[in-house]
């Protein structure tokens, strides 16, 4: 089953991410039980569902932080898994990650570096641009998330919301074509959730292709072009925003009313 037909008309039809028959087990526990998902350019895909449903694992499969046991992964026209040769596999994975940005639940900023250095480091080490240019670009990115004045601060001196915005700036600095968000607001105090969602909203409006795992149903309802409800390692239902108002699936309805 492919859930592509639900995406809205504003996106062009260029496939950014295509997952086919993805299966993954941790030991005896089957976390993903055959997932098919296609993400088009400019589309905003929201994945929601109870904890343990496999949504984070699915997201992490897209940049191969989790290696699927079965199935194929194609990103922007290139198949990255299974690799064509096991000798080039790790190089291909690194290549894939250069244009798939990721934002983590726990931010994962580098605590020994300032906000600016956090954004500049991958530009220097991965894109191999000079430190001066990298820092200029990093400042530009921090400005975009409204944290330019905090450039010289260390993560420990920033609030959770600010840290997550630095993490978004860090990922954006690499000029990704797809952005993955793994429960970006779940570790935040309620009063700073808004500032992170607002940055994500701007990003969505700018046309970035986004895949977001979230419990923020109101936010999902706002940006979600394709909304995927997962449970027990399977996609139960996927659809447009109407899924939140009038899903035909009783389990989806039950979950949404429980979290709203």
């Amino acid at each position, binding site marked *: 089953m492919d859930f592509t037909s639900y995406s809205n008309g504003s996106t062009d039809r260029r496939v950014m991410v295509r997952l086919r028959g993805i299966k993954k087990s941790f030991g005896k526990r089957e976390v993903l039980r055959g997932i098919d998902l296609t993400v088009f350019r400019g589309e905003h895909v929201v994945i929601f569902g109870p904890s343990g449903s496999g949504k984070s694992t699915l997201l992490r499969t897209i940049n191969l932080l989790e290696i699927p046991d079965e199935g194929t992964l194609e990103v922007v026209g290139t198949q990255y898994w299974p690799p064509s040769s096991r000798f080039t596999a790790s190089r291909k994975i690194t290549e894939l990650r250069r244009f798939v940005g990721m934002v*983590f639940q*726990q931010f994962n900023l*580098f605590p*020994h570096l*300032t906000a*600016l250095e956090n954004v500049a480091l991958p530009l220097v080490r*991965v894109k191999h641009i000079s430190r001066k240019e990298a820092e200029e670009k990093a*400042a530009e990115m921090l400005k975009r998330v409204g944290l*330019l004045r905090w450039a010289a601060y260390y993560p420990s001196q920033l609030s959770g919301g600010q840290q997550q915005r630095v993490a978004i700036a860090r*990922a954006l600095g690499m000029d990704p074509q797809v952005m993955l968000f793994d429960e970006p607001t779940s570790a935040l105090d309620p009063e700073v959730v808004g500032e992170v969602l607002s940055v994500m909203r701007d990003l969505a409006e700018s046309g970035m292709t986004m895949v977001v795992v979230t419990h923020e149903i109101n936010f999902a309802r706002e940006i979600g072009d394709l909304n995927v409800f997962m449970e027990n390692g399977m996609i139960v239902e996927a659809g447009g925003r109407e899924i939140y108002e009038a899903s035909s699936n009783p389990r989806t309805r039950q979950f949404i009313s429980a979290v709203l």
Partner: protein
Amino acid sequence: MITVLSTIYDWSLIWQYRFDLLSGLEVALEVAAAALVISVVAGVIIALGRMLKPPYSWIPTLYINLFRGVPALVSVIWVYFGWSLVLGINFTVFEAGVIALSLLYSAFLAEIFRSAFLAIPKGQWEAGAALGMGKLTVFFSIILPQAAKIALPNVGSMLIGMVKDTSTFTVIGLLEVVHVTQTIVATTFQPFVLYTAAAGLYVMVAFAFDYIFRGLEKTLSVPPTGSIAKLLTSRKIRRVERIVEKKLAEETI
């Protein structure tokens, strides 16, 4: 009794032989410093080896368990006499001392570094990987700087241990503190006075290293504290501030 004490124990000998004692200390510090550099580099490599999947981790594990168990005295005799007999390599006493210490302390430091590496959250590796960094880049740019700070106090303790262990190298004739002391005792017959001086030197070194390593730790803390750290990072902070000011100026135009 007190008068007897003062006539028997000639404390002025310490002052009289101060340069000999200090030259012994200098040798001990040189051996320990050279061995520290080698042990830190080797220790990092062995720690990484130990973190590989078995069977690759077996050799580093064996090395660690073997050399942590060997006393310094045995190690130096083994290197200085043993290697020259079996392999025909002749080391100077200084070289033999450095090698003997490096063999032992690279094993200790490997365990210290391993626990420091494991203390870095997995998310740091993942964040680096997700940004397209290779494993080596993540290790050197992200993991090592953080792990170094964690390992630092223990490295300081190890260094104190290394300086103390040089005392056993008197058996191969290294002119370190104990050897120098023995020589002076042989002519002055004042072991209590001179070994007290020797002990005092070791304790002084321990205090000095403790002070230095605490300073280093402070320098490496985030955000940097202490005058040295402020001095080191002030240029960086000014550079960042210039960039920020430039961007803010662009905004207002």
